[in-house]
């Protein structure tokens, strides 16, 4: 005949060396002093199984298991410190990140082997002592061990990675909304900024056509249409002749082009400025195929034709290249070097 368990909490008994009255005792609470139903530390609480110790009787001294490594308490034979049964559903022990496993009133591990009457105070949990390690035990690594309250690492140590991530997250959140605007203002794709280099023969492929700077010369003695000297101050007039090879027969991309002359300092000058409005020079503008009989530019034959441009430069400016820009091709443009 078997007797029903007397405890209302008949949890699975841990294979402790003292599976004694903790499972069958009349009290579901803390383990009875003198019983050791908890998980045995290697070489710590191992003792031959036997009858449970009498209530209040001195606990047997811990005896290392032969061959087992020395544990936390191997240096000091334990006396009279009962452990909590694993079946006891009381306060969490070591695996749980709960409050300190050892009651606050517990003064920590003894610095010297205990002696005297058995301790009958608060029950001992299965967790190691949160205090200073006993002589011979390795020290806990910083940040990984229990905190000052003995339960878990401090807030800063538990959240350092989150705080670290907060820095780039904050920077991204503050600067993100402005990235699009910064890209718009710093890299304006509507202005010519990417030159299309000319090949070895001087032709530059651009906007579905080819073009080459044939001639760049200074125009002396510029007059107005009444043959009077043109008032252009100390400026000088330059004439550029550009050859085009445009195979497009209908609407050419070059129709909407704008031509500039760049000097050696990077300044750009426009074709036929207001100051030359009265000058006796051929009219015309753009890069399209010449078709008007009013211009002095020879009419196009085949795919190739030429166009001339006039620029007003300061006296100290030295021309370097001609730019052909088309809004639909921006930011690319053809940069025709001076021959």
């Amino acid at each position, binding site marked *: 005949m078997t007797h029903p368990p007397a405890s209302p909490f008949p949890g699975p008994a841990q294979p402790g060396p003292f599976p004694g009255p903790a499972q069958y005792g009349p009290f579901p609470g803390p383990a009875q002093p003198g019983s050791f139903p908890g998980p045995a530390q290697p070489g710590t609480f191992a003792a031959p199984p036997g009858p449970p110790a009498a209530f209040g009787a001195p606990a047997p001294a811990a005896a290392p298991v032969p061959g087992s490594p020395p544990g936390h308490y191997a240096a000091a034979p334990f006396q009279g410190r009962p452990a909590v049964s694993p079946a006891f*559903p009381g306060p969490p022990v070591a695996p749980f*990140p709960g409050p300190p496993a050892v009651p606050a009133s517990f003064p920590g591990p003894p610095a010297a082997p205990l002696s005297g009457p058995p301790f009958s105070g608060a029950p001992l949990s299965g967790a190691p002592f949160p205090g200073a390690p006993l002589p011979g035990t390795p020290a806990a690594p910083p940040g990984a061990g229990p905190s000052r309250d003995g339960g878990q690492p401090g807030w800063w140590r538990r959240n350092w990675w989150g705080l670290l991530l907060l820095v780039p997250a904050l920077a991204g959140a503050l600067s993100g909304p402005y990235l699009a605007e910064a890209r718009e203002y710093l890299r304006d794709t509507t202005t010519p900024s990417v030159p299309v280099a000319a090949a070895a023969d001087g032709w530059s492929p651009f906007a579905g056509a080819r073009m080459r700077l044939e001639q760049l010369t200074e125009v002396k003695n510029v007059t107005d249409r009444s043959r009077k000297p043109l008032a252009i101050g100390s400026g000088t007039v330059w004439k550029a002749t550009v050859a085009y090879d445009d195979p497009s027969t209908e609407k050419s991309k070059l129709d909407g082009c704008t031509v500039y002359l760049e000097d050696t300092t990077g300044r750009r000058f426009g074709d036929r400025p207001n100051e030359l409005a009265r000058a006796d020079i051929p009219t015309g503008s753009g890069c399209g195929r010449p078709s008007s009989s009013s211009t002095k530019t020879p009419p196009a034959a085949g795919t190739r034709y030429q166009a001339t441009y006039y620029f007003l430069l300061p006296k100290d*400016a030295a021309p370097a290249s001609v730019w052909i820009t088309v809004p639909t091709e921006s930011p690319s443009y053809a940069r025709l070097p001076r021959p």
Partner: protein
Amino acid sequence: MTAPPAAPAAPAARHRRPRASLGARLTTAALILATLVAGTLIILVKPDQARLQRPFFVSGTAGGPVSLRTLTVTVLDTAGAPKLQTSRGVLETTGMWVTVRLRVVATEEPVMLQYARIRDDRDRLFQATNRVDQQLVGGRTFQPGIPVEGTVVFEVAKDARTLTLLVSHDPGTLNIQLEGVAEIELPAPAEAWRTQEKPVTVPSAKVAE
């Protein structure tokens, strides 16, 4: 012999986090509140779009060059009268004609002087008049290094006193954004101009030496 009744199943052990202390909870609440307050303050203090893209005013005085990013402006002369002499005759106004002779030179690329205003002592803005053909504003392209002198004509209120010229190459339809604006206080004896009988003239523009 019957088997003893099974004991009631033990409740499964749960991994429960310990309840945070009152101080920790209050600290968390305070941090959340501080974050919300800080975010609100940032939103309130952060400049709006109009302020972020406001123009850059460059102040100067008449007779001295004022350099913007794309051009340099110098006020050469100012005049004013109720009558304006043009090639088509004399134009009268109930206000006052103000002519400002400028020297303009572009710095890097061809630009146009598309914004020209006069601000008076009451912060009223008067744009360059369209009753005459403007020499410099709107339709002329300035070449780098080629200084051009010409006149800008304004029609301002008769009670305007202190006059400040504002010019820029930005058209500034609504607002000038992220562009330089020259701000030049004009030597304007408005009282004498209001009683001036002789019409002001508009010399033609020319390329300066």
